């Protein structure tokens, strides 16, 4: 374990950046959900890092991180369900095909 907070934060920013890029750039809905998970985990990492380096925040940081994991799990479930439902109708996982709400 590194002794430097910055190292964790840099890693967290990198992960978040990759997640964001993936979300914006990938056309596959499943891949986009994965990118979201990556962003959530990047945020989780920074929260835990703050908690570990600041003893007063340790308890709250763990609680928030657990919440985020739980919410992420729920989000993944609902997201996947929606994607599968759309997939059944449209026969494609590519989000650019899902533009019929425009009109």
């Amino acid at each position: 374990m590194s002794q430097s907070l910055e190292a964790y934060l840099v890693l967290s920013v990198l992960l978040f950046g990759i997640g964001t890029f993936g979300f914006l750039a990938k056309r596959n809905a499943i891949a986009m959900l994965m990118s979201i998970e990556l962003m959530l985990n990047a945020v989780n990492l920074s929260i835990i890092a703050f908690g570990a380096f600041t003893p007063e925040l340790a308890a709250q940081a763990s609680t928030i991180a657990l919440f985020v994991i739980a919410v992420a799990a729920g989000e993944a479930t609902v997201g996947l369900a929606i994607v599968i439902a759309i997939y059944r109708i449209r026969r494609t996982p590519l989000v650019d095909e899902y533009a019929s709400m425009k009109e």
Partner: protein
Amino acid sequence: MDLTFNAEAATGHGAETLSLTGASSEQAIAMLLILALPLAGFLLTGLLGRRMGERPWIIAIAAILIATGIGTMLALGALSSEEPVRYGFTLYTWIPAGDLQVEFGFLFDNLTAAMMIVVTWIGSMVHIYSIGYMAHDDAKWRFFSYLNLFMFSMLLLIMADSLLVIFAAWELVGLSSYLLIGFWYKRRAPKLAAKKSFLVNRVADQSFLIGIMGVFLLTGTMNVLDSFVGFASSAEPWVRDLVALLLFVGAAGKSAQFPFHVWLPDAMEGPTPVSALIHAATMVNAGVYFIARTSPIFASAPETMVLVAAIGTFTAILAASIALTQKDIKRVLAYSTLSQLGYMFAALGVGAFVAAIFHLMAHGFTKGLLFLGSGSVIHAVSGEQDMNRMGALWRKIPITHWTFLIAALSLAGIPPLAAFFSKDSVLGESFILGFTWVFVIGAIVAAMTGFYMFRLMGKTFYGKSHVDPGVEPAIHESPRSMTVPLLLLAIPTIFLGMVIGLPLGDSTILHWLEPIFLPAEELLAIQFPEYELFGVDGALIIVSVAVAALGIGVGIWLFGIFNSRARLETVESLTDRNRVSRFFYTASQNKWYFDDLNHLVFYRFGGKVANGVMWFDVKVVDGVVNGVGTITQSVGDNIRHIQTGHVQNYALGIALGLVGMAALFMLMAR
């Protein structure tokens, strides 16, 4: 002499004014009943009349007869008391709004009593007469419910003590008049006449309403009696003149004075009982009543008073000159009504208020009788109204003829009939008060009155018969429900003047009404000199009777009486003698082209203005409103393209926004 404004009296410290006492509960209930009965009659007949079969008039007539009984008792009680009475009560506060407190209150004094007698008695006579006259109409129930509505409105008008209530009643009589003129709405002419009367009245009513607001602004009260107190000292003379002028325009509209006189002759398209009740005896007197009721307001505006006299005198001679040549029997009477109303306004204008109300009463009964008589004539000749297609009727419809003759003589001013006394006091008092021009023109009009009434008599009742041969055998005297009202109305036409107009110069009606007009007379500094029967007043009577007799004589000479022959060739040679006489004859027949003038001004020219206003409305006002909508729509149409429907575009937007916010936060935090 001219009218002068007495500034001392304006401070309100003149002689004692008639004080208002609270009505006893019996009086209050009686006054409410007088109003409630016709209102109930209107509602019941209007709602249930269709199911009441052949006699839908039962409720309506019962309501009016009971109201007449109560009204007469109240009126006689007021008129016969030693001290002049004035009592009133407030039913409730109609509009409680800060400084504006309008009470729904009633007032009863001798002026109300005099009007009450005219309205209720002629009203009941007309109701009874209508049973016979409207017998063949399918919508009798509608007719009688409208008549009841009119009675309610008119009685409210004369009993109300607040300017705003008077205005409401003013509009209600206008509405019932509109409904009754257009009673035969399936025919074109009554429909147009109803619309015309309503529109002309509306124009005048606007001015009336503004005048009422003016009184409220100056005095801070809507109560008629309270408004007198401060009015005379409330503002600059020209402001008072203006307010009185606005009120006068309203009164002139309802009473059909020049230039609003055009609606009344057309109103004759309504059923004849309506012409008798509304357009001769009661509603058209509302303007005269209003000016008399608010006499202190008008007395505080002497310039307007002179204008009232001038308009009245002008209308009198204008209408009389038109009446000379009309062919329709009801139109002659209508123009005669205008002319007599002109007399009343002239009397009001010179400050002879008592004479004006006296003439109102006498003329009301006389002209009511004349109109009901003309209805009986029209009934006899199966609906014909053109006098050129009548003649020689006097033996065939004797009751109608004799009552008509009495009324014609009364209207012409032959003693001792009712209108002689009243017309003589109008003319005499204008002369005494220094308005010689009113007297001179009034005397000329008196001669014309005698002439056109006996032209009408000659053409209708005497000479050779010009009745359609097909109708001739069917000529019959009217049913009893029509002749009895004629006979009953003949009684006041004969005796009213003798009962309340004597002794001359100290008459009963003077005692009745003098206390009411005292404040106004004081404001105008009017002092009536001692009455001299064997001096100037007697001479004036002789003059007015002489001119009336002259007019009647010429009428009889030209158009015949009883069995004597009419000189129609002479008439023709007189009217056709040269270009001037031809011009006057056609101009009079065409009512001095006032209808054409109105057509030109308000239809041709006014129509152009209205079109211009419509252009502005359509192009500018609607353009702005529609423009806002169009612009919004097109902006939305254009920017909807940024909504691509691709979820990643939105996500990019969110991400950029997030970056932007973060950047901003870092800049700010530094």
